């Protein structure tokens, strides 16, 4: 009789944390499905389900390796864990003693349950140089919401716990329907749409839900601040703002009114390319049909005007009173385990650590606890050595940082780089030592889904391949060698420590799989109680929700939001735009991939084999491009190849390219095809948001033309494009 067991665990193939049931028969996973007894009610997406192809995937990294050839040459020698860990610890100690602990950087991919380890690890070594993609994804929201609500960041209350669902929802550059991201949850969002009167979608292209929307604002990429300010202006001009809330609980309304008046609707329509009537309608719906929420997508944080764009949107929420009401934006009450970030906050950042944050003097908001990677790359290319040892987990900085060529050149100059990863990718090929990581099906760990109102458990279902280990184990082991006072005897003790406030233990929690503050335990209208401040009010210097931010003012930033054109656009660089006439956006999500992940998962790759560039059929016709053609997309920095998909749902003046693309099947040389199709070959790191340092990744300009057949045969592309393919891309 086969021994069959069902293991309850949590998916983190995106940020969703969907509850999962895994059937294990005689030690082999034979089934994966959603757990009906979880917050996601038994549903799972294609990414999560296809996790099964991580198991026994021959391309997984299974052992520690050290590089024996040049960087990017793909020559490796297998080594033992002891050798790997001891070498890493020795390198860290050496760099720390000789050049200072801040020359040791820790980098990570998008926060997938290891944020607390990277930050704790970095701080335990005395360095605040954590390199995270946060500055182009979620951190600006966290920081700017935090200016109003302190720790209690704002999230959409589409749960109905306060008795109502949002009546008006704005999905602003988001596409939450196909991936849970940035603490917002696909499943709850979709459910709440059944109760939503007006769904307003702000997106440069048609998405799955634009046909479901009441209103679709097809915006020119990079002009979102103008739209938000235009809406604020309409709401104020028409007297539709929430008088009670604004009067009693906000600071700086008159100043905001004045600023918004600089954005009359005609001007906004001209800037954003959205018809005037639609802007007016959106403003009225949002102000009148309350409560409402705005989901903000990370595309807005991949723009150099990101801080002020978010400030404008937050103010739009403020003047409509959509703060802390049931069905509006709410800051969550934490689970009984408290703030999971305390795992690293308990090691405070010292002034000395802070003073060595790269880019900290320039990007003051971003430097709250991470450094600016673009600054580091620039310093390297100036001949400096800002970082000596770089410990990287999960992320692909080569892929997501702006302007790939200087990034690769810069990274080559790092003395010693370690990559912890599941698969061989561009960062692994850049590393000196590569460590094999375990997949979520193969680990015991706590999942924090970005600090929200719940934490969940990953329960190990099968052993990892070869000698692969969980991130927690890897950080703990290196940590024990360099800063033993902050690390633990084993992973279980570490996990127990993370749960100590509940108080509970890992063993108990792993059975429970979830701890959160749901339903009636959530608290609304915190500003009317002593929650934030005795006698009521917001946790801000003025005690009010600051429409006019005194904190930003003190830091030397404009306390009121404004719009600024992208670094390169038809308006800001008209001469350049004559040569590069199309606006290029790279912000859209694909339901099959999460950022740079999963091109090596066969089931997912069948859905979209090549990166796809969407182009309006009219534009395509003018350019002689047909559906399925490979095309060059060129900017002043370089050119890449993607596959054209003729798509009527995009403005004829805009094209949308798939971001974060490399080819895991490509040879190590050329860093796994990172230069071939990735839009960051085209982007520019020099035009950055003054608060966060975010460069223009999702709004630039380009020209597009068809690839000649012989160009695709260029030996540097290997066999990526040479296979005969017929006319059209796969149906998807």
């Amino acid at each position, binding site marked *: 009789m086969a021994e069959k067991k069902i293991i309850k665990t949590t998916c983190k193939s995106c940020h969703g944390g969907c509850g999962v049931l895994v059937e294990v*028969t*005689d030690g*082999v*996973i*034979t*089934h*994966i*499905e*959603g757990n*009906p007894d979880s917050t*996601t009610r*038994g*549903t*799972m*997406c*294609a990414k999560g*389900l*296809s996790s*099964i*192809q991580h*198991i*026994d*995937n*021959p*391309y997984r990294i299974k052992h520690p390796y050290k590089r024996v050839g040049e960087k990017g040459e793909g020559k490796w020698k297998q080594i033992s864990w002891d050798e790997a860990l001891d070498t890493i610890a020795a390198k860290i100690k050496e760099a720390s003693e000789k050049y200072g602990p801040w020359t040791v950087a820790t980098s990570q991919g998008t926060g997938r349950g290891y944020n607390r380890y990277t930050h704790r690890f970095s701080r335990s070594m005395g360095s605040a140089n954590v390199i995270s993609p946060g500055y182009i994804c979620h951190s600006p929201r966290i920081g700017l919401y935090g200016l109003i609500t302190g720790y209690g960041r704002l999230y959409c209350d589409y749960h109905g716990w306060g008795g109502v669902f949002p009546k008006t929802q704005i999905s602003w550059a988001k596409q939450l*329907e*196909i991936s849970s991201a940035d603490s917002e949850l*696909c*499943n709850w969002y*979709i*459910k709440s749409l059944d109760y939503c009167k007006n769904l307003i979608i702000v997106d440069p292209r*048609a998405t*799955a*839900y634009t*046909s*479901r929307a009441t209103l679709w604002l097809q915006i020119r990429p990079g002009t979102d601040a103008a739209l938000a300010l235009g809406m604020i202006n309409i709401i104020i001009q028409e007297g539709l703002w929430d008088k009670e809330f604004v009067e009693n609980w906000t600071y700086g309304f008159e100043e905001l009114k004045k600023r918004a008046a600089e954005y009359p609707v005609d001007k906004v329509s001209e800037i954003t390319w959205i018809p005037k009537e639609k802007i007016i309608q959106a403003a009225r719906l949002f102000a009148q049909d309350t409560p409402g929420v705005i989901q903000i997508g990370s595309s807005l944080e991949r723009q150099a005007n990101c801080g002020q764009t978010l400030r404008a949107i937050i103010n739009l929420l403020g003047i409509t009173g959509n703060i802390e009401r049931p069905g509006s934006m709410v800051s969550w009450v934490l689970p009984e385990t408290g703030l999971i970030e305390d795992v690293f906050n308990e090691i405070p950042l010292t002034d000395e650590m802070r003073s060595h944050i790269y880019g900290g003097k320039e990007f003051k908001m971003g430097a709250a606890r991470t450094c600016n990677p673009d600054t580091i790359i620039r310093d390297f290319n100036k001949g400096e050595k800002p970082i000596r040892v770089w410990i990287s987990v999960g992320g692909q900085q080569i892929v997501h940082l702006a302007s790939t060529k200087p990034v690769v050149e810069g990274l080559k100059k790092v003395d010693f780089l370690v990559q912890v990863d599941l698969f061989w990718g561009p960062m692994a090929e850049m590393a000196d030592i590569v460590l094999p990581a375990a997949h979520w099906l193969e680990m015991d760990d706590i999942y924090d889904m970005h600090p929200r109102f719940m934490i969940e458990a990953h329960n190990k279902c099968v052993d990892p391949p070869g000698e692969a280990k969980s991130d927690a184990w890897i950080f703990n082991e290196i940590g024990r060698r360099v800063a033993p006072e902050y690390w633990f005897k084993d992973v279980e003790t570490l996990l127990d420590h993370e749960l100590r406030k509940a108080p509970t233990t890992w063993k108990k929690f792993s059975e429970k799989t979830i701890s959160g503050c749901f339903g009636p335990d959530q608290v609304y209208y915190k500003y009317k109680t002593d929650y934030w401040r005795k006698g009521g009010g917001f946790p801000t210097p003025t005690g009010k929700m600051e429409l006019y931010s005194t904190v930003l003012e003190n830091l030397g930033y404009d306390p009121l939001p404004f719009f600024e054109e992208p670094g390169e656009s038809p308006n800001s660089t008209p001469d350049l735009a004559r040569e590069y006439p199309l606006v290029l956006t790279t912000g859209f999500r694909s*339901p*099959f991939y999460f950022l740079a992940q999963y091109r*090596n998962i*066969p*089931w997912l*790759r*069948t*859905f979209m*084999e090549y990166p796809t560039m969407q182009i309006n059929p009219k534009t395509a016709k003018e350019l002689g491009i047909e559906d399925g053609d490979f095309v060059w997309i060129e900017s002043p920095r370089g050119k890449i190849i993607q596959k054209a998909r*003729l*798509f*009527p*749902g995009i403005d004829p003046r805009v094209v949308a390219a798939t971001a974060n693309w490399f080819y895991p*099947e490509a040879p190590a040389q050329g860093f796994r095809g990172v230069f071939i199709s990735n839009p960051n070959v085209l982007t520019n790191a020099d035009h950055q948001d003054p608060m966060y340092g975010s460069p223009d990744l999702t709004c630039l300009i380009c020209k597009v033309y068809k690839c000649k057949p012989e160009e695709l045969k260029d030996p540097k592309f290997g*066999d990526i494009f040479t*296979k005969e*393919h*017929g*006319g*059209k891309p*796969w*149906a*998807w």
Partner: protein
Amino acid sequence: MRWGMVVNLIKCTRCHACIAACRIEHFLPMGMNWPRLIAWETDVPGEELTTIPVRCNQCKDAPCVEVCPAEATKKREDGIVYVDNDICVGCRYCIIACPYQNRTFLSRDKDPGYFPGYERTRFEKAGRKIYPHTVGTTEKCDFCMERIDAGLAKGLVPGKDREATPACVNTCQARALTFGDLDDPESEVSKLIKEKNAFQLHPEYGTDPSVYYIDGKIGNAPSNIAPREEQTASHMQHLSTMEERAKQIFGKK
């Protein structure tokens, strides 16, 4: 009793999870997709192109059943059309007969393994024991009849109780798929069909599909939808290129 499905085209996010769920449920070989999302042209301005989820329609008057010389394709009392792969002789008449292109012949090259040239994964190997796929026969969606049968035996209700409901329906985050008994006027599917004025794809083929669509802006009149050649082109290309490409991308170099 006649099992049917309603697909809500406005809720569906085109996320492809239904396909992944079916692949896991039935341990499908790389080149095999029972449900699919296919390109579909419409006459709705600004939305001239969409994709729609399709799977075997479990037609009431199923031409695939009629043409099968081996009587391997059968129709059950409850309306489910299935292939008995022990009997199927691989003549592929049914593939030609199905006007919806919902059947696929499992040729050897459609089963190269997830990672061609490498050892099959343990999931693949275990799957072959639990759910054998016979090379040289034809396959298609069978409405997860094993789930339905096992569920009914336990007294559960397909479409209501998860254990008795098709895998794709369970996994859909958008809750775009509804399953139930078309003969029961009180079932969720019957109500949706009535209230929402549901339509079948290409009713002019005269097969009376059990899969219905609602809330789509693709136009209710069949003349609004793309000519069959168009649809076939994108579908066939999908299936004919995948195994080869899978070998090229994921195969041993």
